[in-house]
């Protein structure tokens, strides 16, 4: 069963009860150990791969050298034959035959190293993917456990402080009321500020003799005169 399915089954089955573990702690530890082992093997495989690749390169160089030497000696044999020196040509041919058997041995070694290197590379890639997958699964288990433990810590904290999580609608209403109060205060402050600036503007106008002026004795007299005429 996949880890995902295991966690899902455990949660649905009510293992989310406080104190109960989704996957038993011992199994988690074993799993962690397995991941560490796999990582260890991976490191070793990478080291082996480096060694095999070095051998592969050296065999490759040796094969190249032998091929060059064979070609070189073939040239010598031709030259000896051109000169009619059969004995010398035969000696060179013998040397070529030795070189060819050495080449065949080296070629076999190279093929074997190349095969090993390819296999190891494939193994390293596969192991890396496997370790990443194990880690993803472990992360799911540990996160589930952590959330459970965190939940139980939160629950304990609430019961010990005699407070409780409020009903969602009540919480929202309270938050909105606080927001409203804050907005009202802001508005009041703005209003007050604008009134202040109104007053100061009036004062400036009055000082400049614009707008309402105080009723002076003269203006009262003028008004009375106007009344009498009518």
């Amino acid at each position, binding site marked *: 069963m996949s880890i995902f399915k295991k966690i899902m089954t455990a949660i649905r089955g009510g293992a989310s009860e406080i104190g109960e573990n989704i996957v038993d702690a011992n199994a988690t530890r074993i799993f962690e150990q397995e991941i560490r082992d796999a990582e260890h093997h991976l490191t070793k495989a990478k080291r082996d791969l480096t060694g095999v690749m070095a051998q592969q390169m050296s065999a490759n160089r040796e094969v190249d050298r032998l091929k060059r030497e064979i070609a070189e000696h073939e040239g010598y044999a031709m030259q000896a034959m051109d000169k009619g020196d059969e004995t010398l040509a035969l000696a060179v041919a013998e040397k070529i035959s030795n070189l060819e058997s050495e080449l065949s041995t080296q070629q076999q070694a190279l093929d074997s190293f190349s095969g090993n290197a390819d296999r190891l590379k494939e193994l390293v890639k596969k192991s890396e993917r496997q370790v990443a997958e194990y880690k993803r699964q472990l*992360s799911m288990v540990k996160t589930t456990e*952590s*959330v459970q433990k965190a939940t139980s810590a939160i629950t304990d904290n609430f019961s010990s402080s005699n407070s409780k999580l409020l*009903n969602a609608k009540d919480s929202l209403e309270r938050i909105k009321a606080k927001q409203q109060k804050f907005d009202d205060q802001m508005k009041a402050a703005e209003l007050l500020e604008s009134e202040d600036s109104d007053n100061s503007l009036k004062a400036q106008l009055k000082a400049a003799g614009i707008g309402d002026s105080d009723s002076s004795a003269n203006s009262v007299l003028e008004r009375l005169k106007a009344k009498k005429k009518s």
Partner: protein
Amino acid sequence: MNIHKIADHLNALGDNSATGMTFDCQPISGEVDVLQITIAEREELPIFVSVTDDQILCITYLWGEDEVKPETRSSMQESMLEMNIPMPLSSFSKIGDKYVIFGALSISSSFDDIEHELAVLSNNAIEVIDDMSEFLI
């Protein structure tokens, strides 16, 4: 990153946070360390932060199963599923009999990322309760 570093950072921010929110952090001890973060004026909806090997989890409790109008339960859950992608940074989940919204951050997140996450989570929570109150008793 651990909850104490987060707490120190958020408490030191005071009124100078980039989000304009004032955070108050209270560690809760237990088998796993949890940080209870309250945002000024929104004390009713605390955010609980815990740190695991590879991620930082920020969780806000929305409502309990007992607050859901039974006849609207499945349409509420469907709405939650549908809103999971459009809702920025946060996702819905359920812990025990409580519906929650949460955000998960990489363990290598910056303080700015965490502060942003908390602010968005808080805004999402308020909006979700407001807009889904039709499903609630």
